[in-house]
């Protein structure tokens, strides 16, 4: 089971981190304005930025 476990973290650690960042972004703006809004723009901006970078790769 050992090698498979390390496989899981190797593959999913970055997506999981991005998932947490997006979730923070989604819920931050529900709590307030100003800094909370800015936090949500960063949280939702990161997945958009990574996607666009992938699309532009030639």
């Amino acid at each position, binding site marked *: 089971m050992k090698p498979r476990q390390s496989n899981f973290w*190797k593959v999913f650690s970055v997506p999981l981190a991005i998932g947490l960042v997006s979730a923070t972004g989604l819920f931050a703006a529900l709590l307030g304005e100003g800094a909370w809004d800015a936090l949500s723009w960063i949280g939702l901006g990161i*997945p*958009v930025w990574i*996607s666009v970078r992938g*699309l532009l790769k030639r």
Partner: protein
Amino acid sequence: MKSKTIRRWSFIHTWTSLICTAFLLMLALTGLPLIFSHEIDHLLGNAPQVQALPEGTPQLDLQQLVQAAEAHRPGEVMQYFGWEEDEPNAVYAIMAATAGTEPNSSHTFMLDTRTGQPIEVPSANGGFMMVMLRLHVDMFAGLPGKLLLAFMGTLFVLAIISGTVLYLPFMRRNEFASVRTDKSRRLRWLDLHNLIGVVTLTWALVVGVTGVISACADLIIDAWRNDSLSAMVEPYRNAPPLTRHAPATHLLEIAHQAAPGMQPDFIAFPGTRFSSEHHYAVFMKGSTHLTSHLLTPVLIDASTLDVTAVGDRPWYMNAMGMSQPLHFGDYGGMPMKILWAALDLLTIIVLGSGLYLWWVRRTVRKESAR
């Protein structure tokens, strides 16, 4: 993961996606302009223009507004008054032939709360944006349309989950965010499908689940009527129908006293689906950012103006209230709307590339079978 397990998940991913793709593409495309409906209304000149009057011009009371509305649309009755935070000098009014008339046959307009002048809101009653909204909400098919879309949304969520499971075997030998651009078109789109799919996953899940909840709104409101509302108005079960209502003049003051610290969101007039035959229901929202999406009804007897009950908030009504901002993306200013649109477009790319990958593999398999 065993190859048999992979094949099983792959089967789930292929078919849940294929069945919902056409609907999801329609939802993503119609959802795009809906994100900016406020801005589009302004651009098209459809946004209601509230007259500029000197600061401190006195406001009419609610009964005067009811009379102004009735004078504007004779023969119709009031269904709802609603408030918008960014428009302190106007109120939304919804009227129809009878109080129980279904929402799509009602007429929505605004009233200037200082003069009682009606202000038409064309985009609330028809036009391009209304077509987008109806396609997005029920495809012009009423409850069956909503439930079909709720089912498609559920398949979408299943497709996301199975896609995430498949991400592991596909990515075992690849670095995160690697896109193989030098081999074949199929590999490039496979990598992009995996990359964009996995990074937009949280957003797509939240928008998917909240969309399913919103699509079930009619059922949720019915549950509230049968459960919470019917208990509150139990003493009125055999009361004769009202022939006239006490004036609405002080409804807001009464509701404020019954639910201190809360703000009015809308009033449901007697006989509408958000009230009983014998009550005005003033729906109060919390005054913090988070609780402003949660509504507490204050039921006011429509003949004596006594408070019958301050409603509780069943969990499913809270879930419906919180689903709205999380589905619309309208709670974090213009940058959030732009990001929402970008994520929507990225979802279209994931759907399109998924369809393409399925098609390419299918033709390859057919040729090898030959």
